[in-house]
């Protein structure tokens, strides 16, 4: 009898063993933003605001896939949030490799190399934002019931078995889908797959990236839904009307998407049409450009769409997956969606209908100065009334006296020479151009908004950057152009009458001309839309010198939050990773990473222990520092 009991107990233990080793099913982090609702939220509570200060690095891993751009390879820009699924951490690298790691130790399980061309085909750098994971709900025990996908800059999507890293031969052409086969209009460059596909049920939803600053005519922003197992095309959605597709282009989805599986909707953050800073070729309506557009997941048909910038000539791409959140406003629970923007706006609408939660007003905006031929300006633009804009766009930003003095008055002279009539001041050919504030790299970037559902607090990082845009007619452009960089410099907008220049407003020493802070972390009470707290985040750095933390830092990447009341974020110039109190915004912990951690952190539980993973890959928008580090932290074992 005793033996029988022991045997039963043993059987029970054997049966439970896989469960004990499995991840916490309620704390999924199997997508780019953790979950399809893009909340970047973990319900784990082992790490709290009280003990996060004890956090220690338990392992780190270097992929070896990095380049600083000084050799034969372009620089790497790595923003890949790890995916944790199938008891494995999967990461994609900017050399377009997949690496599978043990989540507890960082030990390598397998790697897969796409052997993709390492060339800057559409971007100034080799970029990757990670991988996607799909698991067949009706698994048959065959290979590739669990699949990992990685895209490449040359427009190929690779599918490999999640257990072995072997190609999935059922998928497209022996595990490789050539997405460029669908690049049939203005195919000037490949449809670069830098962002992993969004996995919804058995569909992969594919957006792509390109170079919308380079040409007037570019590939139009198609979105492809493909079968996750076979790679077959299920539906296509076109963001531009038929009449605009050949004479403009882009309005693509280059960032992550979110989805509400229960409601059968996928939400597309649609970017601006090409070229970025002149719209004389696209004066007719393009209602889905620079929008959030909700599609029926099964059919790809539009359910609702809200355009956030009419006739976008500022490169104000909708650049982050909208965050889906159920909020209680005036005692009523609303299935809401928050769309963060480069302008520092946070639009909140009902995600079933697209209707306003708080009023979004159409307000008159500055019109042109008659210096730009062919342009037709939108008379009004949408402005959210709540939450208030994260940046004050009403007036020219104040000049930083120290930078002006060090620059011997260069900042004042630049300010006087820049045209600014508030938000949506259009580009001009006159003077030094028009002030872009917030600029295309400022406000909120692709990290988007994190949301803690119990307290209904939304958390977002925002940059305060001032740039200026100047248009040049063709003759003047050829004389003025002296090269371009990432998010700054010259771009030809070939085919259009104007080339353009976009520069950060700095003095000769590289000091910003405007007053700090340069970046903040903001918490919002979503019952009311009011700011709960806002604090400078990170530290700016120049030539290695750290500036005071009260100045904050521009940020790329975003936060993650936990039920333990902790916010985790890297994102800043000083390449530190930090934890903040969700309640107060107080910094609770930090550690130095190899490079700016420009991906959202991933939070997961494995074998009963809570981990926080940062990818420190760097981004040339912040500074020329690259990294190949995955750094994983946990509380010490007792």
């Amino acid at each position, binding site marked *: 009898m005793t033996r029988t009991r022991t045997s039963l107990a043993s059987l029970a233990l054997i049966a439970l063993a896989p469960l004990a080793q499995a991840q916490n099913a309620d704390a999924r982090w199997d997508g780019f933003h953790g979950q399809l609702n893009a909340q970047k939220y973990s319900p784990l509570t082992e790490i709290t605001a009280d003990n996060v200060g004890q956090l220690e690095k338990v392992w780190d891993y270097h992929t070896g896939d990095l380049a600083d751009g000084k050799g034969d390879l372009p620089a790497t820009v790595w923003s890949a949030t790890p995916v944790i699924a199938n008891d494995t951490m999967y990461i994609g690298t900017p050399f377009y490799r997949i690496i599978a790691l043990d989540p507890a130790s960082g030990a390598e399980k397998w790697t897969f190399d796409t052997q993709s061309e390492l060339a800057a085909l559409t971007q100034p750098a080799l970029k990757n934002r990670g991988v996607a994971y799909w698991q067949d709900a009706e698994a048959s025990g065959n290979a590739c019931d669990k699949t990992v996908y990685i895209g490449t800059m040359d427009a190929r999507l690779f599918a490999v078995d999640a257990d072995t890293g072997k190609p999935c031969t059922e998928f497209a052409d022996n595990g490789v889908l050539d997405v460029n086969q669908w690049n049939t209009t203005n195919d000037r460059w490949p449809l670069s797959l830098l962002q992993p596909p969004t996995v919804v049920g058995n569909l992969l939803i594919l957006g792509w990236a390109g170079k919308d600053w380079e040409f007037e005519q570019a590939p139009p922003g198609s979105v492809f839904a493909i079968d996750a197992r076979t790679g077959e095309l299920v539906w296509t959605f076109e963001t531009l009307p038929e009449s605009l597709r050949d004479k403009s282009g882009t309005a693509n989805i280059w960032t992550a998407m979110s989805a509400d599986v229960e409601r059968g909707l996928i939400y597309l953050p649609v970017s601006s049409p090409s070229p970025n800073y002149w719209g004389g070729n696209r004066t007719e309506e393009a209602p889905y450009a620079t929008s959030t557009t909700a599609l029926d997941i099964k059919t790809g048909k539009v359910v609702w769409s809200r355009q956030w910038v009419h006739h976008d000539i500022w490169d104000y791409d909708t650049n982050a997956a909208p965050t889906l959140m159920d909020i209680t406003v005036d005692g009523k629970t609303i299935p809401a969606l928050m769309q963060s923007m480069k302008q520092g706006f946070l639009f909140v609408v009902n995600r079933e209908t697209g209707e306003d939660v708080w009023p979004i007003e159409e307000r008159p905006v500055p019109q042109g100065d008659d210096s730009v031929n062919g342009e037709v300006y939108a008379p009004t633009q949408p402005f959210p009334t709540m939450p208030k804009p994260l940046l004050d766009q009403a007036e020219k930003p104040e000049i930083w006296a120290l930078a002006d003095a060090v620059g011997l008055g260069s900042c004042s002279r630049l300010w006087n020479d820049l045209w600014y009539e508030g938000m949506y001041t259009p580009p001009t050919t006159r003077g030094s151009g028009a002030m872009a504030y917030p600029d295309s790299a400022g406000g909120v970037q692709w990290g988007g908004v994190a949301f803690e559902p119990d307290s209904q607090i939304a958390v977002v990082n925002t940059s305060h950057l001032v740039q200026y845009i100047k248009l040049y007619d063709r003759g003047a452009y050829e004389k003025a152009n002296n090269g371009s960089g990432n998010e700054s410099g010259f771009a030809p907008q070939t085919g259009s009458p104007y080339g353009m220049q976009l520069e950060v407003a700095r003095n000769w020493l590289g000091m910003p001309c405007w007053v700090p802070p340069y970046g903040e972390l903001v918490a919002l009470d979503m019952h009311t839309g009011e700011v709960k707290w806002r604090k400078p985040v990170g530290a700016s750095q120049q*030539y*290695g010198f*750290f500036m005071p933390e009260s100045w904050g830092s521009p940020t790329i990447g975003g936060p993650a939050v936990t039920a333990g009341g902790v916010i985790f974020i890297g994102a800043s110039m000083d390449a530190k990773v930090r934890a903040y109190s969700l309640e107060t915004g107080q910094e609770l912990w930090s550690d130095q990473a190899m490079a700016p951690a420009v991906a959202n952190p991933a939070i997961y539980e494995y074998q009963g222990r809570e981990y926080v993973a940062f990818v420190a890959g760097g981004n040339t928008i912040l500074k020329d520092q690259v990294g190949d580090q995955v750094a994983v932290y946990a509380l010490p074992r007792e």
Partner: protein
Amino acid sequence: MYYIPHRNPAGGAMVAVSGLIAAVIAAYAFLMPLTGVNNTAGPLLVILAGVLLIIGGLILRMAVGRGLRITMRILILLALAGTAVAGLLLHQNLIALAMIIGLIGVIIDIIRPGRTAA
């Protein structure tokens, strides 16, 4: 009777030692990963300042002319202050602490009076 200004070896030596410490710490910060300032210009600037402090300390140690000594003290004080600020901005606080050694060296060099001889 004439003065032979006293050569105070301790003050100049301490300045040189502070420069050496600063240069070593800055070199470590430049070369080692995860210092937050590796491969940046800031630590290189501190290494240069450290080398200049070593040279300055040695000159101070050997200088006999009053004018040269005063000039060296002023230049060294400026270098100490600048290096300390640079160390703090690089988050390498030991560099700033090392500059205190150099400061004490300059103070010793100032307060110990010259000795009359011959």
